[in-house]
């Protein structure tokens, strides 16, 4: 991995983006195991229908984990100072998640050179599911 360089980066520069495989029922079962979140809204279609909804849907934190990968593929994890998201829409079965990020600010803070990033996890139609931000320290 070539580490991004503070001086070479400009506001507006993009992080290398990626698109996931379609979210499947298996994805959600695996995420339930990995995360420990076995809420029936994500796993049990009988339960979901009995509560008036059409189908199970993805854990919000799955999308945030994808955005976490976007960050750690770009910088070593110990460079991440903060990371947050707002969950703005539900991710349905079959949707691919498009993870993108860009530099929105360069700043010096606590004696470090840092960049503030804007992050988005959207479906392929461009509907944002999660909007986030992160601050990372760069050399």
């Amino acid at each position, binding site marked *: 991995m070539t580490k991004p360089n503070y001086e070479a980066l400009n506001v507006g520069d993009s992080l290398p983006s990626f698109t996931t495989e379609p979210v499947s029922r298996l994805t959600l079962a695996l995420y339930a195991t990995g995360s420990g979140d076995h809420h029936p809204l994500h796993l049990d279609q009988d339960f979901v229908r009995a509560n008036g909804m059409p189908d199970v849907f993805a854990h919000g*934190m799955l999308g945030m984990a994808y955005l976490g990968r976007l960050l750690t593929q770009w910088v070593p994890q110990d460079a991440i100072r903060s990371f947050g998201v707002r969950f703005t829409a539900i991710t349905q079965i079959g949707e691919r998640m498009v993870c993108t990020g860009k530099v929105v600010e360069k700043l010096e803070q606590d004696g470090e050179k840092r960049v503030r990033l804007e992050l988005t996890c959207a479906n392929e139609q461009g509907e944002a599911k999660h909007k986030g931000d992160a601050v990372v320290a760069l050399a």
Partner: protein
Amino acid sequence: MLIDKKHIGMKVPPHSVHLTAWQLKWFAKATGETNPIYFDEAAAQKAGLPGVLAPPTFFFCMDMDKEHPFDYLETMGCDLMKMLHGEQSFTYHQPVYSGDVLDFDGEITDIYDKRNGALQFVVKDVKVRRQGELVCDVRSVMVIRA
């Protein structure tokens, strides 16, 4: 019914988690992670790490790793079927690894509503410590629909 704001300042029952490589391996598989420092103990060791590295959002999973993760909302009388995850954020101080024992200490720091109470927001701030040292601040905002 609006949640009583007297609950602002309420402590969440604390809990501890023993982080295992087994759990991180499944999390990596579920999230499509391909970097072995996140799932393979030998690779982590080779990279000079004391264990498998917990990825950035895994602090949330550990915060939920208790018998009743939303006990604080139940105490407030919320219907958990009407709960949505609104926001999640982390401030990082130290990386954590498999083998670590982590202590989670939470407090309700805000309760507010929008649209005349149609949406209520409960903010929980959790300090995560390893042997007394602060490693992460975790903030979760849960939304309760009317």
